[in-house]
């Protein structure tokens, strides 16, 4: 990634989109919109001081919403370029409120609220589409209750939980528990504020609130307006502290998730959604189970699938090693539904096809291996660039020319073409580069001929 940022032959146009393409192989005219970051690229050093001071918290897309970032942000810590960006939907200043704290903080004077989108024109000989894929939205399968049960997560969310630089620093904290901890933190803040107000009154009347409140309720201070105010304050304080204590008691029992279930083919090999196999999900479930067990050795994982497809080089060995060394059990069966049991534990009901029985099992957390879905903007992009899509909305190719689109001079690689893993994406990428280079060198030859 670093190399991409500093290669002399590579112009990186991040936070940009292609708006128009005209011409043909060897000679395309391309219009690119460089969206405004409200931060001057040549000034920003990526120091992050602005993000630290920004008062606006926004769900962090890079962490799949499991953490928060500021309204001025870098997409992720090691992101390239490191230039920060102001999120125009959430920034206070850009939404008519007074703020500008980032601009005051920035030593480099990089913030520019007046900055506008820029349009640039490129002339290229060939185009490679590498627009990737989207995570299938599992809420389309209502029986899995992805939105309703906090401890049912997608595999990409689980990747973020596993990551040392993620929102839990690599601990398998359960989303339901994290929600409670967030609530405790919010209540503690409120309790502190209301305690401060009570402290003043206690000083004034020289009496602890609890003792006073007992007498007040017994009717001792009828008609005393000042004491009524105190009583009301204390009553609302109790409404904060009592649930707070309950939650704290509950939080004492929290442990990291140790019994994991992985559910394969969520949206893949399913005629309601995508009939094809997404290819990489069996392997990433095994990987995630292996890593989870490395983090906490007592972790056990059950992978539910129709079959485990480990067809790449070294993959079958990886699968067997996982079973032998990482407490992974493979269960053949399809999931009928997921419900919520006691202690926010997801309960998986499935048909055990080997035993020919319907069974239910409780887990600490369930991970959904979601299908590789075509990326949302692909329809617009295909139209803009001028290529056809296949019936599932991946870029159309044919089996004997797997990186050629329906338009000469335009190539495709990676998951924009079809679901594939990283090694395959890299192989296709090199192949598409080669096809594009043929055109580039041809253009050069013709230019030389024209000069001679």
């Amino acid at each position: 990634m670093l190399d991409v940022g500093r290669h002399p032959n590579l112009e990186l146009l991040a936070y940009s989109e292609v708006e128009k393409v005209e011409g043909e192989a060897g000679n395309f005219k391309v219009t690119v919109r460089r969206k405004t970051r409200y931060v001057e690229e040549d000034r920003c050093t990526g120091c992050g001081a602005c993000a630290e001071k920004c008062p606006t918290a926004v769900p962090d897309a890079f962490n799949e919403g499991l953490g928060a970032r500021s309204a001025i942000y870098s997409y992720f810590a090691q992101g390239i370029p490191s230039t920060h960006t102001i999120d125009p939907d959430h920034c206070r200043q850009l939404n008519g409120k007074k703020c500008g704290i980032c601009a005051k903080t920035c030593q480099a004077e990089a913030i520019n609220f007046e900055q506008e989108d820029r349009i640039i024109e490129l002339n290229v000989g060939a185009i490679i589409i590498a627009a990737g894929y989207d995570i299938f939205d599992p809420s389309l399968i209502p029986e899995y209750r992805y939105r309703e049960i906090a401890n049912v997560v997608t595999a990409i969310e689980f990747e973020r939980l596993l990551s040392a630089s993620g929102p839990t620093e690599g601990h398998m904290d359960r989303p339901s528990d994290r929600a409670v901890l967030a609530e405790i933190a919010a209540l503690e803040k409120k309790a502190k504020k209301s305690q401060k107000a009570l402290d003043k009154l206690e000083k004034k009347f020289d009496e602890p609130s609890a003792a006073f409140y007992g007498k007040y309720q017994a009717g001792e201070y009828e008609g005393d307006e000042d004491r009524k105010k105190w009583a009301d304050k204390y009553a609302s304080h109790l409404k904060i502290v009592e649930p707070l204590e309950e939650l704290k008691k509950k939080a004492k029992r929290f442990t990291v998730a140790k019994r994991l279930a992985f559910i394969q083919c969520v949206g893949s090999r399913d005629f309601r959604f995508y009939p094809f196999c997404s290819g990489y999900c069996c392997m990433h479930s095994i990987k995630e189970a292996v890593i989870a067990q490395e983090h906490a050795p007592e972790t056990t994982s059950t992978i539910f699938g129709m079959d485990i497809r480990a067809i790449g080089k070294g993959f079958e060995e990886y699968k067997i090693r996982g079973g032998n060394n990482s407490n992974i059990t493979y269960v053949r069966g399809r999931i009928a539904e997921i419900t919520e049991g006691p202690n926010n534990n997801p309960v998986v009901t499935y048909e055990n096809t080997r035993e020919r029985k319907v069974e239910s099992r409780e887990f600490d957390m369930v991970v959904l291996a979601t299908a590789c879905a075509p990326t949302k903007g692909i329809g617009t992009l295909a139209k803009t660039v001028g290529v056809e899509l296949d019936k599932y909305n991946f870029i159309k190719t044919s089996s004997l020319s797997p990186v050629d689109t329906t338009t000469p001079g335009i190539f495709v690689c990676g998951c924009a073409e079809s679901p594939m893993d990283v090694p395959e994406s890299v192989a296709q990428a090199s192949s598409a580069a080669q096809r594009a280079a043929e055109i580039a060198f041809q253009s050069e030859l013709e230019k030389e001929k024209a000069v001679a």
Partner: protein
Amino acid sequence: MSKDILVIGGGIAGMQSSLDLADMGIKVHLVEKLPSIGGKMAQLDKTFPTNDCAI
């Protein structure tokens, strides 16, 4: 006629093709819609089958 190449998308596929071309001495313009390149792979903790760190 132009010798330059446009690559759309800065995930692992777009980064690899851009680097291959740039190494051949071809000028590449890499357009990424998000603030940084990396794509989904940047979000992964480690990658199979070697469990190498993703980035």
